[in-house]
Structure formats: structure tokens, C-alpha cells
């Protein structure tokens, strides 16, 4: 987060932000959770709505919906 002198932005930083990720579902478990992976990092998310092998939106640890599978580009800055 960029440094800022803007009071509102500083206040928002204090509140923290929700985590949001697109991950690939590896396994769905019977307890209603799924094992997902993002670029080699695995973690468990709640929800089994997205089938194995598909991309899923994971917001604050919950599988929200299926996510698009997007093309990847590499750039240098």
C-alpha cells in the first residue's frame, strides 16, 4: 500500500481489506471444503460449488463462484 497523507485512505488501511483470489480447485471434501491452489501455494477454502480442475473465486476464504480462466502474460517493468 502506497504511503499517503490522505486521511480517508489511511482509515481504510486501518480497516484492512478483504482477500480475493482466483484459485484452481484441486479436491473437494465431504466436509464442505475444497483444497485449492494458486501458483503452487495450496490452501483450504470453504465451499464445494466449483468442480475439481476449475477456477474459483475465493473471497475471505469462501468459494464464491466459478472464475474465468484467463490468459497469462509476463512483462517487465
Amino acid at each position, binding site marked *: 500500500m502506497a*504511503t*499517503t497523507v490522505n486521511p480517508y*485512505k489511511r482509515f481504510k488501511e486501518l480497516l484492512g481489506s478483504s482477500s480475493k483470489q*482466483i484459485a484452481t480447485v484441486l479436491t473437494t471434501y465431504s466436509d464442505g471444503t475444497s483444497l485449492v491452489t494458486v501458483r503452487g501455494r495450496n490452501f483450504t477454502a470453504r465451499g464445494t460449488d466449483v468442480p475439481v480442475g476449475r477456477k474459483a473465486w475465493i473471497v475471505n476464504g469462501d468459494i464464491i463462484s466459478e472464475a474465468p480462466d*484467463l490468459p*497469462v*502474460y509476463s*512483462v517487465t*517493468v
Partner: protein
Amino acid sequence: MTTYRNGFTYRTDLAYKGNDGVFQKPVLSRAIAIAANDAQAQNPAIETAWVGIERTDFELETGWQFAQAQNQNNMMPWGKPFALSQEAELAHSEAIAMSFDTETAWAKPLPANTEAISAWGEAIALPEIIYSLHWSKTYRADAEKNTGWLTITHRYEGEFYRNKEDYRSFWKYRLINRPLALDNSLSTGWGGYTAKLNDNNIPWGDGFHVWGTETPLEWTSDPTPLPDQPAPPEPEIEDFYNMATDLTVIDVATQTALAIDDVSMSLDIDSFAWTLSARVLNRASMNLAMPSKLIKVSTMGYDWIFVVESYSSTRGIGTTYRIQASSQSRMLDAPWQDISSNVEAAATTWKQAAESLMPLGWSVEFNRIQDYIIPAGAWSYIDKTLKAALADLLEAIGVVAIPDMSQQVLHIQPRYKYAPWEYNAASTEPDVIVHEAMIISESGQYHPANVHNGVWVSGNSRHGVIVEAVREGTDGLPAAADVYHDLIVDVDAGRQKAKQIIAASGSKTLVTLETIITDEQASPGLITPGMLVEIRSDGETWRGICLSTNVAGAGLPAITQTITVERDHGDHS
């Protein structure tokens, strides 16, 4: 046949057989055959009517007498046939020499420079002008005139002149393609406009290939990169600065001067409007500076226009009032603007999308923004004001909108106009230079943070892309947290966003400086958020992005500006 010196046509088949100077007269007559066609009746329309003829003797089968024409007038008188064409008629007689001059037209050729009359037997002297030879000098047979291009060999001796050859072959020059002057052993084949044979066959000494790999000229080039913008004025370093600041506040509607002082005008890089706090000194001015009024604040040649939003007063002896105001860019947000929802059904670009949000009278100016295409249907917003929708656009690629001080213009530029690793690049020129001598007070606050060398930036929808951005020269680790935005639909979008994220990482110190304000002709001028500021002191020189500006003047108009500059700790390099 060519026309020879005297202008008369020489007749072809008459060969002069010069023999010891005896001129032989050519045969004067020749047989010319004329073909005359059959004669035809002059008037073919006339027919002759023959009457029946009497048989003289019935016993004789062939005893026919001559018939006679019944009508004498119709008889055709056949006369001598005429030639069809009068022009074909020739008098077949001995030919006569056409001109007497031709008999003696051949004289010994003379040098061009010498006018001489040749006594040539019975030849008749020609007029001088006929004798002059127009084809330059003649040369001896054994002398080759080397002209550099070809050599003309001209026979001159009398015995060659009187040879048995036809005069035409006598006058035929031998054009010999001689070797060129500089090098007798080389010849050059020319074709088109280039030498067919390169290298050694050009005989005039050292040269260079016009087309080729050799560089013919020694170019001295200046490899210094061109700066992105002109350099700011150099600061004048003084022991003290005698500033005469001015402050004028007027009511925009009536152009009436207002009794207002103690102004404080602020903007930070993440804000959308300048804010004003000021003291109003009397009731009359307060009446003109009531909320919703536009007032113009001018100092040192800079103008701000604010719309007054609130006021307060403290009653007592010498009642004073205070007002709060914002710049007109405040009007792009609620409550001036209603919320709306939209999806852009046609493909557009990022800049066009930003411009399309501007209401009538407003415009945007872009600085160091790389435009990219937003596919149809990719840009959508729900229940947002113009400002909120624009902020979403800005957030997509990490840029900020700096409101203009007095115009209805938003200056859109990257939050980090230059990334910290570009601050001291040769092509980077700061916007403003502040010397230590101009700094009234200074403070700093340290903001430690990890430096990130890479980040993954991703779109959200089917239009999106995922961009893995790596700081050049690094492995991209550690990477910042993933960033998602609907408008990451192009590599250029992801690159711009990622550059801002990486630039914002790392430890920073927010340095707050109070410095003088000058007009724009001198340094430092007015420093506004987003500018790249160079701070010079005796010990060091560093550059940073200005994050906020506060222009304030206390009771007496002694106006100063207080800026916050983000100093990067150089973790990126």
C-alpha cells in the same frame, strides 16, 4: 545520305576513285525505268451502239463486211495513251550535274584552326565557310590524344587520304574505349547508377561505398538520452529571500474584492478537490462569500477558484467569520451528481472512457498514460457518480486525477510519474527543484515496508488477462499481493498497474518541507501533488514525488507552501 560540308547532297553510288589527284567525273547519266500503266478510256461511260450489219453474201458464211458505227458521235476515238501520273513523266535525257560545286567538293581536310585554300588541280576553290571543318582538330595517326575517356585516332597523312576506300569509312572515327587515366590496368563496367564491380575497379583512388557495410563518415553521436520534459529553472541560492507575497480574493460573480485573509489551501495526491479554509474579515465580504458562491484566490500569479461550502462566525467585538470551500472538481461527486449505472456496449479505450465521464464543460488531460483498448462489455459500473466511476477507472491502472486549481480540468497522471528506480535516470527531469536555502522548516516520518519486485495483476471477467510483472533485472520476488480489477483487460493495463504497485513498495520517508512560494518564472514556484521534486542540499540531492501541498498565509500576507515529499529509501536499486 548525309549532307556534306557544302550542304549539297552527295549522291550515293558515285565513288570517287581518287588516283594521284586526278578527279574523275562521275557518270552523269543513268537509265531510269518508268513504268507506264495501260491507258484507259478517258470516259468509260460512253458506249458505242453497233447497228446490225448486212451480210453481203448468203453463201459465204464468213462474208461479213466491216460494220460501221451507226452513230458517228458515239465512236470512241482512241488516241495516244497518257501517262497516269504526270509526275512520273521524266525527261529521259542525260543527267546534268546538279551543282558545279560538287565536282570539287572534296578537298584535303584542313586543321580546324587553319583557313587555307587548297590548290587542287582543277578543283575550284570553295568559299571559305565551306572549307572550315567543324569536327575539331585532327591528329596524327601515331599520336593518341588521351582525353581520359576515349582516344580519337585520326589519320591525316595525304596518302591515307587518297586511299581507295569509300569516303565514309575514311571518316569513320575509331572510338576506342581506352583505359582511364589513373590506372591503365583497370576498367570499370558501368550499369545503371552503380558500379557493377565494386572494390578495385574504380580507378580514381580511394573512395567509399555509398551502399555497403563500410561506414564512410565518422559520425559523432551524443548518446545522452533526451529528457522527457524541459528542466525546471535552477534555484537561486541566497542568504535570505526577500519575498513580497500578495493575496487577492474576489467574488467571481461580481469581481468584487473580498476582505479575506489567513487562507489555507490544500490538496493531496489521493484527493479529488482542493480545499480552502479562510478568515473573512467583515460582514460585507461574508455576504458575498456565502455558501454556493464562487470565490477566486490569487497569490504570486496562481489562481484558485473555490465554491464555498460552509461558514461559521464568532460573535463579539470585531466579529470574524471563517469559510470552508472546495474546488469545482467537488461538483463531479454527490450531491451535485446523481448515481447511475452503465455498461459500455461498444469497444472503447481507457482514455475515451475517462473522457466520456466528463460532464459538459469539463475535460481531462492525460500525462504519461498509455492507452489501451477496453473490449465491448468489459467496462461497467453500478450506482456510481461520475467521480466514483472515474475513480474506478483510475484505480484500474494506478493513476490519479489532480484537479486543476481554477479550470474545469482534471490532470490525470500515474501516481508515481516515475518509479523510484527511474528517479535519477538520465532521461528524467524533475518538475521542480527546491534548494535547502529555501526550506523554512522540515520534518520526516518513516514508513517501513517490504520491497516487492513483482506482482500478479489479473482481470476479473472473461475479458480479462493475467499479467505477471517482474521488475527488470530481478527474479520478481518477493511478489506483492495479487491485484484484481475488472479493467485489467490488456497487457498494457496490467503493466501500468504493476509498475505503480512495485513503485509503491519499499520503505519510504514522508518528508514535510515548508518553503517559499515564487511565481513560476523562478524556482521553486508552486509545487503541486504528483510533481517530481528534487531536493538539493549541501550534502546530498534526492528526488521524490510530492504527495500533498498546503499553501497558507497567516494574518499578514506572508504566503508559504508546505509540501510532503515521499522519499524512497532506494531499496529498488
